[in-house]
């Protein structure tokens, strides 16, 4: 199964994770 999050954010938004990385619930994905 897969989940997809699609969202609008200011252009300054940056991800703090990389493709291929394992993540867990509650782990930060990105911030402004």
């Amino acid at each position, binding site marked *: *199964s897969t989940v997809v999050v699609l*969202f609008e954010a200011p*252009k300054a*938004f940056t991800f703090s*994770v990389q*493709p291929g990385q394992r993540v867990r619930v*509650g782990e930060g994905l*990105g911030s402004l």
Partner: protein
Amino acid sequence: FFNSGRGSLLRYRPLPVLVATGGAYYGYQQYKRRDRADGAPPALATPTQVSLYRSFPTRLLSRAWGRVNGVELPTWLRKPVYSLYIWTFGVNMQEAAVEDLRHYRNLGEFFRRRLKASARPLCSASCLVSPADGRIVHLGRVSSSEVEQVKGVTYSLEDFLGPQDGRDKVTAALSASLSTRAEAASFRDGLLTSPDNDLFHVVVYLAPGDYHCFHSPADWTVALRRHFTGSLLSVSPGVAGRVKALFCLNERVALSGRWRHGFFSFTAVGATNVGSIRIYFDRELRTNAPGDTKGHFHDLRYGEEPAKGGVALQRGEAVGEFNLG
């Protein structure tokens, strides 16, 4: 056997067998290595191959799989069966709310096990947190109305979310003015509420051993639930890299609404073994139901209920789960 004259054709010849199998294995490894070295995405499946795959009764198989896994196991059998599953998929039972394997009546129940409250701390520094345990398949900025599901393989944003007028009225009204100004606004532009913003996406793949509940990735308000009926093809990264627009073909539940920066959506995409999606605050939702026709969608607008201004979700709050079958 070796001394019989008529058995010459059947005589066991280890050397040719070893050379043939070894050669084939070596060739396969070289092929895989070359693919990795190129860094190029794997070749896409042809439309015929995709059609053939879609013609398999994946929904029926999924429901049958769910039925099998809903059968209550005798207590003595639970530990060996779940232990095999744990060993195969690398499940960490130490973080499960109930570690005693005999507690779970069937594999379906084991699959949707809960975690200890302290097992998943919430990152306080990020406005966006992971909604699920899994692996990031793709992420980034969405610069057009085509989104990458994995590197080099795209899908249409409009096919994935459905027509724009299905969004809640507030988001639609906010974006309408922008669309008018832009004159030739694309689907992506129509979703944005401010020209100073961009659209971003992140795709997380949940492997069979992962915790299969999903949580809210942010503080936001859900205005619309859209249930797309569809196929239940595998969504493993290998298949996602070969089947274009896989996420638009599969059964899925898309929740959309808004957060403090504008448009926000969360979509749970089903797969063959995990065909059912449950949303805790939506009792009407029925996924992977017999009789559903592929390629349709059904809406439920939470924002239109007079007593509610949509469903408010907090960052990290449990939203729903995937179920076997």
